[in-house]
């Protein structure tokens, strides 16, 4: 930048001076201007408008519009005419970033007027200023280079058509990375085997082996190249070549021809999930029009895409682009269908996977490689779709060029065929003065979190105070607010391990179990029928039995994997075997399989019911394969009108929506189990689901637990695990999941780890670096307390017991078994009605009706009166200070600060008769402040 700006100012100065005197123009200035602004498009490689601007003769010869310079009438030179056109004019030069500055125009005018002086033998060459600037910057950085890599790490070239882009990737000592492909010295020892075409390799021999060597900053990287049948051509294939163009160009998107009814009379399958159908629609509908075998260029398919005829989707690519060439070639060859043996894509890879860019404007080329069922691979970077989940941090171009912007982290998604894959980009400020802070590392959680924060150059907040900690763990671990005596005792405790001891004490309390029973009851949708009408199945009794079953399992600390297996493979009556009520919460088998995937694996596979998932790996075959496990659920009535028997009906199949064929049971992301007729498919599925063979289960449960304590999941939302929504800290999630498995799914042990970690113990006070951070656990998130806990807290601090249906007076809202049982307060504050499995059922967003209910409703005011807390303290002859302190401890879990204390005591001093009222008002005010209903 610096160089560029100084150059400009020089030019401006020159221009200014030229106005005064016709001093001879310095050719170097003209050269610099032409080389940076013009030659890029007018060189032997790229002769726009048939004009070359390399030698003086080229200018005089001119291009399509005649000579560029007319020495006879310099002012009428095409060059000058073009650069003087208004900005909006079609012919203005340069077309990008034009027109030139006035000084620049003046410079060229003077130069032409002075006879376009040209030192002998000088040939102009294009110059990229940005590149030069990067190069200069790189030179400063190069001494700290630590690692040099070539991506992909090996190349396999098959057929004449095959090519692979080379990406050279440097990692520096400060963990930042750079794309140095353009700056490294690339060599091929044997150019008779393979050669470069730009930065892409292609075969030049039939067979052979060589390697590509990259060198920069004293480091060298090598990647082997293997060429097979390198001279043979390969026919363009409909599935392998043509269909990817449809996807890349967006033809088969939902908003275009991929819509269920197509667009403008032409339909393609959404995201190309049905190549057979697409082939038929292209070749058998409107014969001779969509595809014109006689004059391939006049096929609608060609004309529409290149913008030759009007197209609602506009021009998609150039006529001379590789995309158009592919389709044209396919049509020219007779628009043939592929043989049944055509190789299918088996997976895709993305390179590089971890990128750390410094400052805004840094770039990195991404390369995507697809592997095929015949063992070959191809560079599909130009055919893949790219997306960034965080454009303000790192945007990605259609061609896979990543460009950094703000500080932060982003995930890049590449999609090709039915596969999606991501790479992670971290952007840190340029020239950041950063030294890894000495942060507490209490256990493996901190190792992962701190490493991540270091990579992001974020300094975490300090640890919270004892006051904050005791309140936080009480709310998080047992769902109740600490009583004043607990707080004071904890603060007074001087033992070093007191925080861990506190958690130990809480983990054995029944409230801990109740909290998790409630959370699981939400996920398992424990609820009776329509509220107020309990003749509607599922019946209240069944909901209660189901809840009690769950409560007993969790109470006995049965590992969650065992509970899940028992739950999902249960058969019997809804009264005699309560676990089967799970199957009564959703009778639709498709929705049921979606629910199971969402609750137990955190995945939303709904999309794949009708089309392959656009942002995830799930195909319709995966969907119906998973659904097949639920295809044989039998239900029958019993003598008891409230009871239904769920059993293995041993019959029934899952039918693919598109092919109408029965799909065999297949684990989601796993194998097809070997099933015999009559086997209980649910049992087989349940055993896989909760086993180590299923990579998603443990991670999902660990993430659910983590999200409860930190307010944000490592994958967030917790039930939206997908390729395009990867974990913010994969190492952390892996570590949590691994520990959970090692602990035999003992939630208590994981809770112990989490509450002991520095990540959990951090203060919610932010510093400069972590103020914006929400997902990397650099600070504590301020969270609104959930409805049940808040209502219990109000009941506790005001000493007014609650009464809920079916529970004794004084029972806690957390203990309500049935999702359909609620009250105004709970509904307002977002208690889950358990009507769906979505994590969004529980709402913790603050809203106006909540505030109004606390202020004006009976939730607070009446309870303060009814509970007579202040009155009792006054009767116990406590001083104002004692009362205020106790109220603060009760409500905020902390002692009042001086100002707060003073405000109250002074008011009482002014109006001693109104002492009770003032103190009750204080109580009310405290309960209406955010500090009360937020966990911080």
């Amino acid at each position, binding site marked *: 930048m610096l160089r560029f700006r100084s150059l400009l100012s020089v030019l401006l100065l020159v221009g200014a001076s030229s106005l005064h005197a016709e001093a001879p123009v310095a050719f170097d200035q003209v050269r610099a201007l032409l080389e940076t602004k013009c030659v890029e498009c007018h060189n032997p490689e790229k002769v726009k408008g048939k004009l070359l601007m390399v030698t003086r003769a080229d200018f005089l010869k001119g291009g399509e519009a005649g000579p560029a310079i007319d020495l006879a009438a310099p002012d009428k030179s095409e060059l000058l005419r073009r650069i003087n056109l208004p900005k909006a004019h079609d012919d203005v030069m340069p077309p990008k970033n034009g027109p030139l500055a006035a000084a620049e125009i003046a410079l060229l005018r003077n130069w032409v007027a002075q006879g376009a002086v040209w030192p002998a033998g000088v040939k102009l060459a294009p110059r990229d200023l940005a590149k030069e600037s990067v190069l200069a910057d790189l030179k400063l950085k190069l001494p700290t280079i630590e690692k040099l890599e070539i991506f992909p790490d090996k190349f396999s070239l098959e057929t004449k058509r095959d090519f692979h882009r080379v990406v050279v990737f440097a990692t520096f000592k400060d963990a930042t990375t750079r794309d140095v492909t353009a700056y490294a010295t690339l060599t091929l020892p044997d150019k008779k085997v393979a050669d470069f075409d730009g930065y892409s390799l292609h075969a030049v021999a039939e067979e052979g082996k060589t390697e590509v060597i990259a060198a920069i900053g004293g480091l060298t990287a090598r990647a082997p190249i293997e060429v097979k049948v390198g001279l043979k051509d390969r026919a363009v294939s409909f599935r392998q070549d043509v269909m990817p163009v449809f996807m890349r160009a967006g033809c088969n998107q939902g908003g275009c021809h991929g819509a269920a009814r197509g667009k403008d009379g032409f339909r393609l399958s959404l995201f190309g999930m049905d190549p057979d159908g697409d082939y038929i629609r292209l070749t058998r509908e409107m014969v001779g029009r969509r595809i014109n075998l006689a004059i391939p260029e006049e096929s609608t398919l060609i004309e529409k895409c290149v913008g030759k005829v009007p197209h609602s989707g506009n021009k998609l690519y150039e006529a001379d682009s590789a995309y158009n060439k592919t389709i044209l070639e396919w049509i020219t060859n007779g628009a043939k269908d592929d043989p049944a043996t055509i190789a299918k894509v088996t997976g895709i890879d993305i390179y590089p996977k971890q990128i750390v860019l410094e400052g805004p404007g840094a770039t990195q080329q991404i390369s995507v490689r697809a592997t095929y069922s015949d063992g070959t691979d191809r560079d599909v970077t130009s055919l893949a779709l790219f997306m960034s989940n965080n454009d303000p941090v790192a945007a990605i171009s259609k061609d896979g060029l990543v460009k950094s912007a703000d500080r932060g982290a982003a995930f890049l998604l590449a999609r090709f065929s039915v596969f999606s894959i991501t790479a992670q980009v971290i952007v840190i400020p340029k020239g950041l003065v950063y030294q890894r802070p000495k942060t507490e590392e209490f256990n493996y959680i901190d190792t992962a979190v701190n490493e991540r924060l270091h990579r992001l150059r974020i300094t975490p907040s300090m640890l919270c105070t004892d006051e904050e900690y005791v309140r936080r763990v009480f709310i998080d671990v047992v769902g109740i607010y600490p009583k004043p005596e607990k707080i004071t005792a904890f603060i007074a405790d001087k033992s070093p391990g007191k925080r861990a001891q506190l958690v130990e004490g809480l983990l054995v309390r029944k409230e801990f179990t109740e909290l998790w029973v409630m959370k699981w009851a939400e996920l398992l949708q424990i609820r009776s029928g329509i509220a107020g009408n309990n003749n509607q199945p599922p019946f209240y009794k069944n909901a*209660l039995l189901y809840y009690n079953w769950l409560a007993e399992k969790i109470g006995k600390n049965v590992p969650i994997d065992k509970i899940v297996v028992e739950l999902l493979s249960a058969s019997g009556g809804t009264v005699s075997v309560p676990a089967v009520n799970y199957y009564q919460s959703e009778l639709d088998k498709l929705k049921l399989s979606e629910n199971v995937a969402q609750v137990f694996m955190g995945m939303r596979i709904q999309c794949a019911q009708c089309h392959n998932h656009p942002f995830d790996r799930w195909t319709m075959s995966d969907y119906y394969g998973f659904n097949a496990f639920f295809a044989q659920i039998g239900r029958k009535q*019993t*003598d*008891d009108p409230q009871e239904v028997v769920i059993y293995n009906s041993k019959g029934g199949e899952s039918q693919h929506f598109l092919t109408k064929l029965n799909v065999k049971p297949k684990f989601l992301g796993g194998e097809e189990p070997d099933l015999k007729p009559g086997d209980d498919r649910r049992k087989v599925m349940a055993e896989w689901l909760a086993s180590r063979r299923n990579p998603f289960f443990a991670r999902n449960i660990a993430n659910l637990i983590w999200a409860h304590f930190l307010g944000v999941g490592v994958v967030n939302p917790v039930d939206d695990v997908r390729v395009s929504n990867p974990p913010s800290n994969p190492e952390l999630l892996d570590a949590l999941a691994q520990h959970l498995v090692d602990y035999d799914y003992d939630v208590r042990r994981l809770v112990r780890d989490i509450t002991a970690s520095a990540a959990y113990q951090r203060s919610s006070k932010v510093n400069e670096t972590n103020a914006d951070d929400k997902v990397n656990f650099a600070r504590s998130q301020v969270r609104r307390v959930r409805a049940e806990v808040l209502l219990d807290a109000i009941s506790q601090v005001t000493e007014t017991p609650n009464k809920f249906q*079916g529970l004794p007076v004084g029972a806690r809202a957390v203990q309500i078994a049935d999702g359909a049982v609620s009250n105004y307060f709970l509904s307002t504050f977002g208690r889950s009605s358990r009507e769906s499995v979505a994590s969004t059922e529980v709402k913790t967003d603050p809203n106006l009706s909540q505030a109004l209910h606390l202020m004006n409703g009976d939730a607070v005011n009446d309870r303060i009166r009814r509970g007579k807390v202040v009155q009792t303290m006054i009767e116990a002859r406590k001083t104002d200070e004692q009362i205020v302190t106790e109220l603060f401890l009760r409500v905020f879990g902390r002692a009042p600060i001086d100002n707060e204390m003073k405000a109250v005591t002074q008011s009482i001093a002014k109006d001693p008769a109104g002492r009770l009222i003032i103190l009750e008002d204080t109580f009310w005010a405290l309960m209406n402040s955010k500090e009360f209903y937020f966990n911080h």
Partner: protein
Amino acid sequence: MSFRLLLALLLAPAVMQAAYPDFSGTKPNGGQRGSDLKLTLQGTRLADFEDLMFFSPGFKVKSVEARTSSAVELTLSIASDAPLGNQLVRIRTKSGISHPRQFFVSPFPNVAEKEPNNDFASAQPIELNQTIEGVIQNEDVDYFKLTVKKGQRISIEIDGLRLGYGVFDPYIAIIDKAKFEKAFSDDTILHRQDGYCSFTAEYDGEYYVMVRESSYRGSSRAFYRLHVGSFSRPDAVYPAGGRPGSKLQVRFVDAKESFAEEVTLPKDNNPDFQLYSRTRDSAPSGNPFRLSNLENTLEVEPNDTPETATVAVPADSYALNGIIDKPGDVDYFKVQLKKGQVLDCRCYAQAIGSPLDPVVSVLTSKGRSLISNDDGGGLRRLDSRFKLTVPADGEYTIKVTDHLERGGPNFVYRLEMIAALPSLTFASPEYSVNDSNYRQFLAVPRGGRMVLLENFSRNGVSGEYRFDAQGLPAGIKLLTTDAIPGDLGNTPLMFEAAADAPLGQAVVAVTMQPLDPKATVIGEQRQLYDIVRDGNTIYYQGIENKLPFAVVEEAPYSLEIVKATVPLVQNGVFNLHVTAKRKEGFKAPIRVMMVWTPPGISSLGEQTIAEGSNECVFQLDANSAVPTKAWKFVVMGETDAGAGRVYNASPFSELTTDLAFVGAPAIPLTAMEQGQPGTMVTPFEVIRPFEGEATATLVGVPDTFSIAPIKVTKDTKELRFTVVTDDKTPIGKKDNLFVQIEIPVGKGFATHRVAIGSILRVDAPRKNAVVKAAAPAAGKDTAKATAATPVVLSRLEQLRQKNETPKN
């Protein structure tokens, strides 16, 4: 106020002081056998209480302490040999009989629940071998405390739902002093929502028994009887059936301790028979046990494969008994069957208290499945039931298994495969929706009658039968004494009480005796009735073979069918006139029910004699195939005159059905133009000559037509109606017309309906009609003849004429 009105008011309570008493409950709900019990009956219209009607022996109302309209206090004497369990009881007042309720006989004395007993601290002390009478209010939990010795068995059983106060679903538990639930029971197969469980004390000291509603609900009518004792509480009995009157070795399958016992079965067949242990402390309720004449086949393990199947001794019918004793167990039997046999196969499992959900398959000797049944229903939904038609003589394999592949020592079953046995049963239909007990009794008013409709169910039984009722209360006699032909589907069963009959009662098994001395099958009542029912859901049902009879006070009205003087002919109509005689002051409307109509005759089911009126008419319609015979008709009145329903039936009244005198086919479509006259003609057939002149009327056309009735005699050959239309006559087709002919018979007329399905059509007037063309013709000679007997044009001729119309 007039004197008459005053008199009516004074008389009213005397006339209708109570009828059809409403029996809503008792307090307590049961008592100990061999004791006298203070019992309060609750209901309405009880002021004239007379007695209780039990369906089993052993109960006697010793004294009545108080009677009010809503409650009766009495002392009930329960004999020491009174049957245990729930007993059917009705209230009889001077004027009626109530719906039945249950009364529970327990081996233990009653103890009343005392609130507060809602937590451990306030648990009510009780002792073993007591029955606690309590109630679960909303969210109520009742605790009881008892002191036992280590090793002592604590058994508890609750009657909640069974008491019939509505759907009450109790939950019971035995809890130790550390507050751990050591045993609990919510629902059981044997007693549905009512539970039982047992526990052996682990220490000397206190144990607690807890009762609540399973969802912490309850109500002021959620009554329970909680039995606490050391009794054995079998889930089921194996085998669960035996021959009446035989001695049999059975095993009582008890979760705690099963035991064998030799039992002597009663001689009488009783579909509700319950078996109790005689060697152990018996449970407060028995186990259902099938009394049947089949030879028991008991499974011999191992019989888990067709090869090791237990072979039954060849017979016509089989009773296969076994236990699916472990998960996945499959039991096989081999039976010999004969081609063409139709076997009614029922697997009794849940019906006898077994948790088994049986799946029964019948396989040929080659292993091919003939039939497989999971839930065929019967008394319990999950039990199997199917009909098997045997395709060929030979050996067949029967496979029994659990639908969910469960098993256990109490998974007892009894598969009865019964080749069609001749039988004759009768039962009354449900007279009211969702209330099978409505009017299922015979409360016969003094000097009056009461009647039930009985539907017959014959299985391989034909021939004539006659009702027989022995042991009726004094003064009551059976009126349905005629022989009942073997092809009659139903008949009214009527009884009459003499005017001076003493008020009294009896529970009587009415039978049907064959007229043929060689016939062996006796007809029995098989009345299915609901014991506990909530809307459409029936929780408990019973089968009764006895009817409750009572002589009640004279009804305030009587009915009579006006004697018929003419027959009801085939395809004919008869207006049956019913007259009411009201006692002075009785003015209320009377609902009159046509209790029964013979085959081929239809009628509205009921009519009302309006307030103050004394007559109603039932129109009887006979079809063409009604048998010619003298039938006995009866109607019964029901009146709700402000104090319960009072029944009184008319005496039988004979009405003869006879062949028709005349007949005529339907008049084919006759079309005419609006404003033009037309003629409808059909041949007239005289089947039986009749005297005098009959009137024939075309029925079914609107008043806008003018069709004059015509006179016919036995010599008439055709029916010819002249239809006159004008410009107001609606255009269109009128179908379903018929001709009603009143044939004089004696002093009356036998009404016939002939030419049923005749059709008349009125077309819009033609434009340019040829009225003029017809006019000159009228002046000619031939016109006279035409006028006398107008030519009837067929539809084809009409069309032809229309086409020939000059197109001027």
